[in-house]
């Protein structure tokens, strides 16, 4: 059975405030899904109901088809999660915290030992594994939490802004860890408000605002939401490219719908059509022999869609 997460009519009200409004979302199969939205959109509320930290006013959540509300123990047995920044009992060491986590999950002592060594290495905490958690910085604690969520090699991983509290190097390391998880066969559902993080590691993206799902789609299709089947790519050249070259040979390519300059060596090109047109454009740009060194989907496409969808919500 492929791993899955499903929210059915999920609603959460806090007094008169509706934080989440009849969310229906099904994530199915091994992939990484980014969960985007501005602060207060309902991301953490949703993830908390997937892990039974709060209870739905209406609706239900399922992990691998098992209702979290009806059988939390069974549902969470295949799930590793990291919601907000949990604290670990301060007098325990990471090794002891992981031992406890593994023992509560029913892992055998030898499994716990070997997996502990692997996950603390993965989060670069081997050096601190026998020090008391109470002395750790927020970032170090978050690494231990990530290790705990991966300890049982879970089929489903729910991460709520996992790079919170980490320095830039730590954030990059978390991205690498999440990317590494994708190579294994599991479903990752990760909330974030860092768009570049989502672009870097996710295959699909769900956007939520004011408790309502605005869209859920593959990341590759997000650019086409800008309208007219146009997607944006970023091209970088070894030497500066002048305007006549951009306006002439490049703009006249049939796949190019428009261009804008980022800096003397980098331009954003609006591409007509889908991935096939994008591939043809790459070949043609290379054939122009302008010193093309980098060609990738523009990260700003997601940003543009994000801002557009959120502003539509505001209107």
């Amino acid at each position, binding site marked *: 059975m492929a791993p899955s997460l499903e929210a059915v009519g999920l609603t959460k009200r806090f007094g008169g405030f509706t934080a989440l409004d009849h969310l229906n979302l099904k994530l199915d199969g*091994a992939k990484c899904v980014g969960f985007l939205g501005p602060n207060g959109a309902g991301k953490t509320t949703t993830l908390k109901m997937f892990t039974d930290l709060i209870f739905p006013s209406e609706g239900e959540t399922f992990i691998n088809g098992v209702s979290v509300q009806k059988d939390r123990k069974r549902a969470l047995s295949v799930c590793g999660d990291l919601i907000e920044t949990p604290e670990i009992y301060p007098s325990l060491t990471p090794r002891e915290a992981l031992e406890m986590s593994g023992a509560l999950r029913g892992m055998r002592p030898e499994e716990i030992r070997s997996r502990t060594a692997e996950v603390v290495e993965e989060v670069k905490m081997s050096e601190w594994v026998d020090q*008391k958690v109470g002395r750790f910085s927020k970032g170090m604690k978050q690494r231990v939490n990530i290790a705990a969520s991966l300890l049982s090699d879970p089929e489903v991983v729910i991460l709520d802004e996992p790079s919170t509290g980490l320095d830039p190097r730590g954030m990059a390391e978390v991205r690498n860890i999440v990317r590494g998880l994708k190579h294994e066969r599991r479903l990752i559902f990760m909330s974030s408000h860092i768009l570049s993080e989502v672009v870097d590691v996710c295959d699909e993206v769900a956007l939520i605002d004011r408790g309502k799902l605005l869209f859920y789609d593959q990341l590759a299709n997000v650019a086409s939401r800008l309208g007219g089947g146009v997607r944006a790519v970023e091209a970088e050249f070894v030497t500066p490219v002048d305007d006549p070259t951009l306006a002439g040979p490049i703009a006249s390519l049939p796949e190019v719908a428009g261009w804008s300059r980022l800096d003397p060596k980098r331009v954003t090109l609006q591409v007509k059509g889908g991935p096939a047109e994008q591939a043809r454009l790459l070949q043609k740009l290379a054939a122009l022999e302008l010193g093309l060194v980098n060609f990738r989907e523009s990260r700003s496409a997601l940003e543009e869609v994000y801002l557009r969808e959120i502003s539509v919500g505001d209107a």
Partner: protein
Amino acid sequence: MSVSLPAAAGTGSTLPGPDGTLGSVPGTWRQAVVLSRYQFRDYLRSRRFVLMISIVAVVGAILTTLVAYFRPAGLIDNANNFYGGLWAGGATFLILFAGIIFGGDAIAGEFQNKTGYFLMGLPVKRMTVYAGKYLAVLMASIVSILVYLAIVLGNAVYYLGGGAFNDVGQLLASIALALLYLLALMGFVFLFSSLFKTSLYAVLVVAVMFLFGFTIIQDVVIGLTGTEPWFLLSYANQVIAYPLTGVPAHVVHNPFTGTTYNPTYFEGIAVMLGYFVLTTLGGLVFFEREEFT
């Protein structure tokens, strides 16, 4: 209608599904024991344990000094009198402190300190967390009380020699009643700890209730209504001393001080049991409904 996308090509899982995995997840009570073991370890290394042992040491030192200085004949001539004087009163006081120090934030702290986010993301029932914490607080409190008991026994051996262990059954009966009081008090503490998400409130309410509240209620009930305050835990706990001191008259009329009441064995034990069962279950009900917002 649910929004979903097709699964990516070649996806699927080689990991065990929920049914397979569940088989390895331990039962509720086994998980509670595992949790209590690590929570207890955390307590033993904590400053609060040092604080509790310090309180035990100070109380023990004061009593040891007083007995050494005054050498009250009624006390050091007879084992039951000795334990009735040193053990029963001191244990009741220290059990209250242990309950507050270890149990006050047991549940509230899970919300306030966010340790609950670590635990509740695991495949455990809330009852498991509640029971695990209860066991850990119980163990930490018992260790503290045993330290006090060791001080009392040390004194008893010094003054009474081999006679310290005459009628040891009476002492054991008193210890058993003290344990029942500890269970009842912890139930009460856990109830308030589950009601509040802030540790300080939980600790304050329990401390104020036991140090002042119950005494005031007891005086008011007796003074104004002339009835026995049988329903108060602080009244019921007097039976802890009975195996050592004997059972006093249930009602004592004094023209100068008024009427005083003493609980019967049945009342004391029944009320402590009642507190234990009702408050422990009440706390669990609140914890089951509390959200990690």
